[in-house]
């Protein structure tokens, strides 16, 4: 209320308004060439994935019996060749991009929601609650990850969205720890005290004051979680637990390709390149964001 109006009065005319942390960060991020190139590249991959059906004459599940494991050829518009079932690899790679990117983003979103809520509450409320909540996180950490994911998938069935949820349900642990640590460090700050003194209820302090102020490290960790999740999905596909035919993901394609790497190297090379490129991009963006939000060491 009065704080806001006083702030504006102090800032004076619009042209000398101060820059927020996020504006600064955005400027620094855009100045980082690797991060910028990565964002553009990632946008292109995402666009290719969205436009997949328009880019190739072949449907992703059409089987060409006469062209099984055919090398790339331009005459039939098989730019990436065909797979072991005679399906066009180019269009399958792009459909795989849809699944892999969706898995990465959705699972990360799930882990974000759980992890941020959990960590912020544990850190802010403190005491017994904190002890109990973080002990629970420790216990979950001590369970082997694969066991957990596999069980979640058997319990909830092998629906693709449940894969997202299952992975996200495992990935939130680190997020919760990060958020808790951050929350502890800002808990004693004056603006929190001010909110308390003004009679803001705890729930509202957490959602309005704590969470927005811990988002920096969270955003960085998020960009590093997405590639991790994509890798986990690929690992599940390798075990035969990933998405189901005829749908596919990069992981599933790579797992098939790894079997045939001698006789049909294109089956491995193209999806693997897309996967590696995407992971590179997310990592560069994550690094760039970290540097942008924490300019101390530059």
């Amino acid at each position: 209320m009065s704080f806001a109006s006083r702030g504006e009065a102090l800032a004076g005319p619009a042209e000398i308004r101060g820059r927020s942390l996020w504006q600064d960060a955005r400027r620094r991020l855009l100045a980082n060439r690797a991060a910028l190139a990565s964002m553009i590249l990632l946008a292109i991959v995402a666009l290719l994935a969205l436009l997949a059906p328009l880019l190739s004459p072949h449907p992703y599940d059409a089987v060409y019996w006469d062209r099984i494991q055919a090398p790339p050829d331009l005459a039939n518009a098989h730019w990436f060749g065909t797979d072991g079932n005679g399906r066009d690899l180019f269009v399958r790679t792009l459909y795989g991009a849809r699944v892999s990117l969706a898995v990465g983003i959705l699972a990360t979103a799930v882990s974000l929601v759980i992890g941020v809520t959990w960590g912020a509450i544990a850190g802010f409320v403190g005491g017994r609650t904190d002890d109990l909540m973080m002990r629970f996180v420790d216990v979950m950490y001590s369970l082997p990850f694969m066991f957990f994911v596999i069980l979640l998938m058997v319990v909830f069935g092998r629906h693709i969205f449940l894969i997202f949820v299952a992975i996200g349900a495992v990935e939130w642990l680190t997020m919760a720890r990060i958020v808790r640590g951050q929350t502890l460090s800002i808990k004693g700050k004056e603006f929190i005290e001010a909110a308390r003194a003004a009679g803001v209820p705890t729930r509202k302090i957490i959602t309005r004051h704590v969470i927005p102020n811990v988002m920096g490290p969270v955003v960085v960790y998020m960009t590093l979680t997405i590639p991790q999740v994509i890798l986990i999905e690929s690992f599940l596909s390798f075990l035969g637990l990933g998405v189901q035919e005829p749908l596919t993901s990069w992981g599933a394609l790579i797992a098939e390709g790894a079997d045939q790497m001698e006789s049909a190297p294109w089956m491995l090379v193209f999806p693997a390149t897309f996967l590696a490129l995407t992971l590179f991009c997310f990592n560069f963006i994550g690094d760039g964001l970290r540097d942008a939000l924490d300019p101390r060491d530059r």
Partner: protein
Amino acid sequence: MSAYIARRLLASIPTLLVIVTVAFFMMRIAPGGPFDQERALPPEIEKNVLAEYNLDAPLVVQYWDYLSGVLLGDFGPSFKYRDFTVGQLLATGFPASLKVGGLAILLAVGVGIGLGTIAALRQNRAVDHVVMATAMTGIAIPNFVMAPLLTLIFGVYLSWLPVAGWGGGAPRNLVLPVIALALPQIAYIARLTRGSMIETLHANFVRTARAKGLRERIVVLRHALKGALLPVVSYLGPATAQLVTGSVVIETIFGIPGIGRYFVQGALNRDYTLVMGAVITYAVLIILLNLVVDLVYGLLDPKVKHR
């Protein structure tokens, strides 16, 4: 110090108990049982089989029986590997996993910290970029691609090393799985080391060391590295536990008789006792290694005191 260790070990007992309980009931919530087959068993036989394995008792009773067995060191019989107890399976498999995983983590620590330090000292120069790009590639290539690729190059084309097989753990057979397992870890450790090394090199105590006129080598190795290793050490705890309990992928591809595949196979086959055995092994390792991490912290950081 020893009082601290004793207290930590004592405190880990309830944690372990919770882990066992959670794992036990999660396993049972999963639909299907260890003896479900395409063709259903005749009811009388099924009844006998379930009775034989104590699966017909109420769940709570089963839980209690299992828990008291585990306390006496009896992990029960495996449901899938009919003639073995879980204890036997783990005892024969774990040394193999430990050997491969242990070597891999040693390799990863040595190479990773070395590369990370070099990159940090040459920050934003060509060496740094090359090391970091390589590390990123190491992370970006899944090990189920890396492993067959290595076999193809060194086993098939160059025929320097055996393509697969255990050979009783002979060094020749170990090279490829250890490298395949270590590569992503090298990459993570190098990245972690670089990041914290850059931060440490800006710290006041490093400036003091330089101001005293110490040689750069001493400044880096004796002063900076110690502080820079803290995040690496905390990463290494869980990473080591994961590596020495084996990797399904590496064990499948190279035919290593370890315990990594039990986590996955056991969960898929509802081999309750086998999974529980594997989970307990992993949890115990995690708890012990986290304790080691905290102790090493005390060695590296004089501000940390264990009382």
